[in-house]
């Protein structure tokens, strides 16, 4: 597993999104580069949670938003590194539902959010057996674990 580095304000963008959409789940993409065993996240693009029904426990990203993200990465010469989403009032651990929908290669950053505070940010990636393994995650500002 590579190490995820949240460069500059990228972690703050995710936090603000998670708090702004509370009590619903937020979601979005992040882009960057892979270098020397690090996944450097240099840009975050929030997208709408398009899940029909209870968005406090579920998120879904529209195919068009996904397509735009892939095209954006190609245009900018960046790597689409993964997807972030929040778990309001729940820990930053992938659920069975998260696992069922996960795809290889992507880092899945999960933010645990309680009202106006993101208490934990953790990152996960599928291994060769299609099970989530946690990735080390770093950012300029301290992360609470």
């Amino acid at each position: 597993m590579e190490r995820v580095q949240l460069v500059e304000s990228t972690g703050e963008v995710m936090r603000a999104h998670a708090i702004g959409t509370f009590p619903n789940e937020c979601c979005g993409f992040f882009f960057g580069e892979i270098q020397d065993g690090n996944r450097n996240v240099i840009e975050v693009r929030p997208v709408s949670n398009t899940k029909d029904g209870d968005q406090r426990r579920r998120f879904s990203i529209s195919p068009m938003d996904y397509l735009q993200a892939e095209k954006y990465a190609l245009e900018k010469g960046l790597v689409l590194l993964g997807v972030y989403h929040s778990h309001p009032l729940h820990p930053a651990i992938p659920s069975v539902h998260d696992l069922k929908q996960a795809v290889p290669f992507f880092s899945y950053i999960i933010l645990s959010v309680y009202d106006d505070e993101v208490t934990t940010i953790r990152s996960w990636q599928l291994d060769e057996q299609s099970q989530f393994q946690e990735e080390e995650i770093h950012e300029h500002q301290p992360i609470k674990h």
Partner: protein
Amino acid sequence: MATLLIPTPLRKFTNNEARFQSAGGSVKSVINDLITTFDGLKPHLLDGDGNIRSFVKVYLEDEDIQSLDNEQTEVNQDSIISIIPAIAGGAI
């Protein structure tokens, strides 16, 4: 030649190529061409019956092929086809 955009999570099966060119005249023939070239992709795109997996969407330009003629949708040399994995999840 139609162009097929490979989503980032599947590029490990295409030698990191983001685009694939095919002379196929339909979505189905382009995807078959892709799978023949990169056989590691097959289980990620097709189910046991050879149909496109339920977690995978295929778009021609900005339209879901399900709203066109599904896999039989015709393509031409200017067509851009995108493979789109379903992205979803949730806390519990």
